């Protein structure tokens, strides 16, 4: 134990993981941080092994993936794990964010922590998108074509930017090569951002369900929260195993088992499920440029919560009205996800537009107005 506290490096480990004081009352919803860490490690490990056999070339990429599936020892397990953990990564990050929204974890003094988290979300999505291109099936090629084409909406230099990203005049071998390179690079950037996330967390520690200071009642990370985290980690492995071994392609699209063909557009081009809500927001705006701005805006708008949430009470635990509107927001998110998977016709377009409007209004109208009203009502109630 002395070494753990005296050694320069181990001292950090001790202070971040072993003896770190955590609020005694944090619920299982606080386990998603460690689960996300496990996901990142799993993705990097399986990814490194996949990269040993993968060929980032338009002529060989699809075949090399099939080589991994058929000829590499347990290659199918590695690839299916990599593909399915990507989905779980997003399930967990959405729950992690929802937890932060519900309990006001973005409020001072955790604004930096929240902001780094939003950057992590954006980088994660970029990494997920780049990775989906690599098997170079039909959905890879056409998904890449659609998403990169979004940037052509930028005025003046949009088209030039897209061609710069492609390294040509369409998605081609140069594009696949650089996407592979970036897909290998970004996870390490993510790891660095995670360290920054932890440093930003360290001074004030975790928020807790009551939203009040917890310095009077804290427990050490080890053994209390290490063993608590372990429960959900094993539960995650159990559910992940069921997907990997029994339903490995459930979350994927069958078209991606057709080799990419630039001469043939698939009947429908849909992104991975975790990007669907943002895809719905993109398609809800009739103007292409505004649609792209709205799509990116829907992620970055998370950054203004520390400003727009003016409530004096942290979190929704003691705010019944805000609880209601939090769940409206969650349901609205699922509606957007559903709309993103539908063909853009009536009534889906109209539903999508209403949901998009609600999504943005929630941040810039509902949250501040509710906070203001509650503050006022409390002032009135406590005034003589």
């Amino acid at each position: 134990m002395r070494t753990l506290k005296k050694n320069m490096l181990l001292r950090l480990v001790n202070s971040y993981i072993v003896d770190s004081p955590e609020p005694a009352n944090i619920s299982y919803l606080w386990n998603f941080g460690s689960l996300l860490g496990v996901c990142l490690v799993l993705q990097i490990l399986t990814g490194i092994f996949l990269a040993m056999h993968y060929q980032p070339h338009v002529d060989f990429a699809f075949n090399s993936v099939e080589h991994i599936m058929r000829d590499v020892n347990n290659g199918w397990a590695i690839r299916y794990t990599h593909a399915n953990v990507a989905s779980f990564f997003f399930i967990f990050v959405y729950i992690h964010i929802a937890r932060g929204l519900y309990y006001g974890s973005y409020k001072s003094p955790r604004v930096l922590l929240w902001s780094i988290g939003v950057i992590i979300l954006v980088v994660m999505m970029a990494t997920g998108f780049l990775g989906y291109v690599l098997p170079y099936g039909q959905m890879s090629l056409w998904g890449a074509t659609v998403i990169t084409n979004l940037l052509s909406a930028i005025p003046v230099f949009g088209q030039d930017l897209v061609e710069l990203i492609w390294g040509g005049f369409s998605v081609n071998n140069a594009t696949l090569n650089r996407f592979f390179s970036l897909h290998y690079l970004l996870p390490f950037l993510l790891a660095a951002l995670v360290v920054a996330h932890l440093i930003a967390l360290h001074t004030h520690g975790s928020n807790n369900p009551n939203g009040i200071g917890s310095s009077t009642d804290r427990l050490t990370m080890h053994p209390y929260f290490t063993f608590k985290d372990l429960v959900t980690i094993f539960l995650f492995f159990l559910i992940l195993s069921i997907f990997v071994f029994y339903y490995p392609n459930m979350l994927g699209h069958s078209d991606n088992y057709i080799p990419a063909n630039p001469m043939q557009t698939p009947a429908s081009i849909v992104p991975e499920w975790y990007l669907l809500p943002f895809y719905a927001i993109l398609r809800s705006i009739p103007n292409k440029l505004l649609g792209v701005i709205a799509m990116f805006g829907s992620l970055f708008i998370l950054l203004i919560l520390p400003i727009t949430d003016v409530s004096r009470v942290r979190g929704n635990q003691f705010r019944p009205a805000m609880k209601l509107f939090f769940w409206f927001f969650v349901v609205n998110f699922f509606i957007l996800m559903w709309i993103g998977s539908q063909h853009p016709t009536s009534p889906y377009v109209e539903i999508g537009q209403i949901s998009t409007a609600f999504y943005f209004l929630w941040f810039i109208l509902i949250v501040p107005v509710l906070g203001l009203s509650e503050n006022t009502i409390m002032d009135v109630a406590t005034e003589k």
Partner: protein
Amino acid sequence: MLSRLPASSLKGLRSLAEARPSAARSAAQTASRVRFSSSSASSSAVKSFLDSRATLASATLLTVGSIAWYTHLYGSLPFLGEVHANSPAEEGLHPPHYPWSHGGLLDSFDHSSIRRGYQVYREVCAACHSLDRIAWRNLVGVSHSVDEVKAMAEEVEYEDGPNDQGEMFQRPGKLSDYMPPPYPNEEAARASNQGALPPDLSLIVKARHGGPDYIFALLTGYRDAPAGFEIRDGMNYNPYFPGNAISMARVLFDGLVEYEDGTPATTSQMAKDVVTFLNWAAEPEHDERKKAGLKAVILFSALTAISLYVKRYKWAPIKSRKIIYNPPADKGHH
């Protein structure tokens, strides 16, 4: 719950009092008289019903269970469903769900069916469709013995070389050779099939929505076009094919092949066998994967149970502690 809410409201007020010194005294003084709407009296029976964990658990179970049941019945998640970019006619008729012998969580492939299916592929499908990703060696131990596969491979001539003289030569096939394609290139394939390209079948089960059900329904679903349905020359009507007009004609007819094991070669029998074979070709790891899956479920459910036990053991002193709040004598309630 009833007793906790006002107390916590008090806590909120106290931190408020720190933040705004001007309002501090009045707030604290009136705090005990303030009644918040959330603490208003309601029927305690309803309240305890709504607050009980059993209610929460059973409601969750009902939701998850009904979603699972719906998914089991209709093969897709409720509300989310499948991705439809086209009208149902353009999508093709949804195939029924067939009871595949390898469909269950504990089921492996029916390997004699794979063997019969290989025969159907070789004698029927292979005339037009390639199977590029399957080598002769893949059949060994799956549907045939090594000697049988060697004999089958040797029947095919492969170009090899160059030899010492720099010339290409023909040699009999080896276990490491891949299945010979019916056409040398895509152009030849299109030329022989009125411009249509017969797809490679190695991944066909994974590459089509509906998987084995779709392939089976397609192979057995040929019928006369309904009145009013315009069909171009050289095309065939099949309700399961997207657009309903398919270049491939019906190929499976009763008695088309003669199975070596004496199984009657009906259309549906051959379709079932060839789909099982193609399913194996798309997922050769299938049997091994499900076996490993059972091990993983045993391992991780045990580890989850053990870790739950350890967690509760470690937390027992925390969960059973008693917290007493003694208000400081000098400050008191003011």
